[in-house]
C-alpha cells in the first residue's frame, strides 16, 4: 500500500534535468563520486609510492591494457567464454528445472533422490573439473559441462521449493472445479514456482561465469580464463586486471538480462521482488 502511495507522489513531481535527478536519487551521484575517489587514490598511490607494475598496476595502465586487448584478442576469447557460460547455463538450468519438476511431484521421490543430489552438490566442482577435462577434452565442451554442473543445483533446489509454494486453498479450489493433476500443475503450481525459478536462474547465471573460468583454468586453448593464466605467467598484471573488468561486465550484463526477463514473465511479483532487492 505504501509503495503505491510513493509511486503516486513520484509521478506528481517528476524532475526533468540531470541535476534534479541527482538530487532526487543522490545515491547515483554518490556512487559515481565514490568510484572517482577510489580510482583517483589508487592512481595517486601507485604513482606516489612507485609501486611496481607486477604488484599493482595503475588504473591508467589497466585502461590502456583494456583498450589494447579490446582492439586485439579480447573479442575472440570473450566470445569463447561467453559461449561456454551460456551453453553451460542453458544445459545445467534445463537439467535442474526438469529434475526439479520430477522430484517435486512427490515427497517420496524427493526423499529418495535428494540425498544424492546434495552429496553431488557438496562436491567442489573445481575438484572434479580435471576429470571432466579428461573426459571431454580441452575444447569448449568440457567447460560447458563444468558450468552445467554448477548451474544445475540452484535451479533444482529453487524449482522444488517453488513447486510447493502454491497455497493449499488455491489447489483445493482448482480441484473442486474438477482440475486434473496436470491442470493443477499448469494453472497453479508452475506459475507459483516461477518467482523461485527466476531466483535460481539469477544465481545460476552468475555462477556460470565462474564455472567457465574454472574450466579454462584447468586446461583450455582459448577463453578469458585461459588468457588470465597466460598474462599472469607473463607478469602482465595490467592485462589481468583488464580481463577482470571484462568478466565483471559480462556477469553484470547476464544478470541484468535475467532480471529483465523476470520482470516481464513474473510481472505480478514486480513490486515485491523490487522490495527484496532493495532491502
Amino acid at each position, binding site marked *: 500500500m505504501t509503495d503505491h502511495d510513493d509511486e503516486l507522489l513520484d509521478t506528481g513531481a517528476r524532475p526533468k534535468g540531470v541535476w534534479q535527478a541527482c538530487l532526487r536519487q543522490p545515491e547515483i551521484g554518490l556512487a559515481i563520486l565514490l568510484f572517482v575517489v577510489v580510482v583517483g587514490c589508487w592512481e595517486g598511490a601507485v604513482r606516489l609510492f612507485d609501486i611496481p607494475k607486477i604488484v599493482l598496476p595503475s588504473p591508467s595502465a589497466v585502461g590502456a591494457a583494456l583498450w589494447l586487448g579490446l582492439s586485439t584478442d579480447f573479442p575472440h576469447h570473450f566470445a569463447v567464454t561467453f559461449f561456454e557460460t551460456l551453453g553451460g547455463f542453458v544445459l545445467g538450468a534445463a537439467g535442474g528445472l526438469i529434475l526439479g519438476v520430477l522430484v517435486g511431484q512427490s515427497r517420496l521421490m524427493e526423499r529418495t533422490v535428494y540425498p544424492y543430489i546434495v552429496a553431488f552438490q557438496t562436491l567442489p566442482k573445481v575438484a572434479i573439473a580435471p576429470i571432466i577435462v579428461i573426459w571431454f577434452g580441452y575444447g569448449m565442451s568440457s567447460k560447458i559441462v563444468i558450468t552445467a554442473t554448477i548451474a544445475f543445483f540452484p535451479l533444482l533446489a529453487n524449482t522444488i521449493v517453488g513447486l510447493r509454494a502454491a*497455497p493449499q486453498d488455491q489447489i483445493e479450489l482448482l480441484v473442486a472445479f474438477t482440475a486434473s493433476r496436470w491442470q493443477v500443475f499448469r*494453472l497453479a503450481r508452475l506459475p507459483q514456482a516461477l518467482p523461485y525459478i527466476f531466483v535460481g536462474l539469477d544465481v545460476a547465471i552468475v555462477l556460470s561465469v565462474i564455472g567457465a573460468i574454472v574450466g579454462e583454468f584447468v586446461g583450455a586453448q582459448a577463453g578469458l580464463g585461459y588468457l588470465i593464466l597466460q598474462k599472469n605467467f607473463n607478469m602482465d598484471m595490467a592485462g589481468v586486471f583488464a580481463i577482470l573488468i571484462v568478466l565483471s561486465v559480462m556477469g553484470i550484463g547476464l544478470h541484468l538480462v535475467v532480471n529483465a526477463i523476470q520482470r516481464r514473465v513474473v510481472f505480478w511479483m514486480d513490486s515485491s521482488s523490487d522490495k527484496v532487492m532493495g532491502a
Partner: protein
Amino acid sequence: MSNDLITVKGLEKTYRTREGTRIHALSNVDFAVREGEFVTVVGPSGCGKSTLLKILAGILRRSAGIVQMRGQGLEGPSREVGVVFQAPVLLPWRTVLENVMLPVEIQRRDRTRFREEALRYLKMVGLEGFADKYPNELSGGMQQRVGITRALVHDPSLLLMDEPFGALDAMTREMMNLELLRIWTESRKTALLVTHSIPEAVFLADRVIVMSPRPGRISEILEVDLPRPRTLEVINSPAFGRLVSAIRAHFQSLGTLDA
C-alpha cells in the same frame, strides 16, 4: 427424492491427527437441500461446518454415510458445483476475466459462449469494466465478488460458500450479503453457505442448519419464513430477532458461545 438436489445421510468424518488420536469431526449428519433453496450452516468454530462443505465440494473424503446429488452418489468434485472460499483465492497472474473463466477452462467448456456469460455475471456483481484488471488492482470486496462470479460462470446447480465474507469488514459484509441475495435470486441456483455469524445465517437462508461441536453434528434445522426479497430492514423485524435469539440461546445452552 422429490425435488431434493442434495441428500446427506448418516455422514461421518473422523480425522487422525499426527499423534494418532482420532478426532470425530462429523457425526451422523442428515439433511437435504431442495432445488433452488438457500441453506445456511451456522455453528461455532470446530463444529465441522467447513469439513461438511469440503466433503460436499468433493475435496475431502467422507468416512461413512451417503452424499447424493439428484439421487446419484457424489464421489469427488463435480462439474455441477461452484465453490467460494473465505479468501477470494484469485490467481494474481490472471486478469479478472481469466480468473472467472478458470472453471470453464478446466472443464473444457465452450469458451466463447461462457465468455459472454462471464461478462454478464461481472456486470451483475458491479464489476463491468474490470475484466482486464489484475486482482491486486481490486479491493477485498471486489476480489470476493470475482470469486463468486467464478463460482457461477460454468452454470453449476449448486453453489457452495465457506464464510465467503468472513475476511471483509462489517459494512462491506452487509452490502455483500444483499448483493449475494440479489445474485442468487437472479441466477436461481441452489446455495449452501457456511458461516459463524448467526444474523448472517438467518438473513440469507430459507433454512438454517444449526451445528454443535465435539463431535460436529446437526442440533437443529430452522425454517426462516421471512418474506423475500429481503432488505436490511428485515434485521429489525421481530421475527428476525426471534430466530436469532433462538439460535443464540441454543448455543448458550451448549456452552459454546462466549459472547
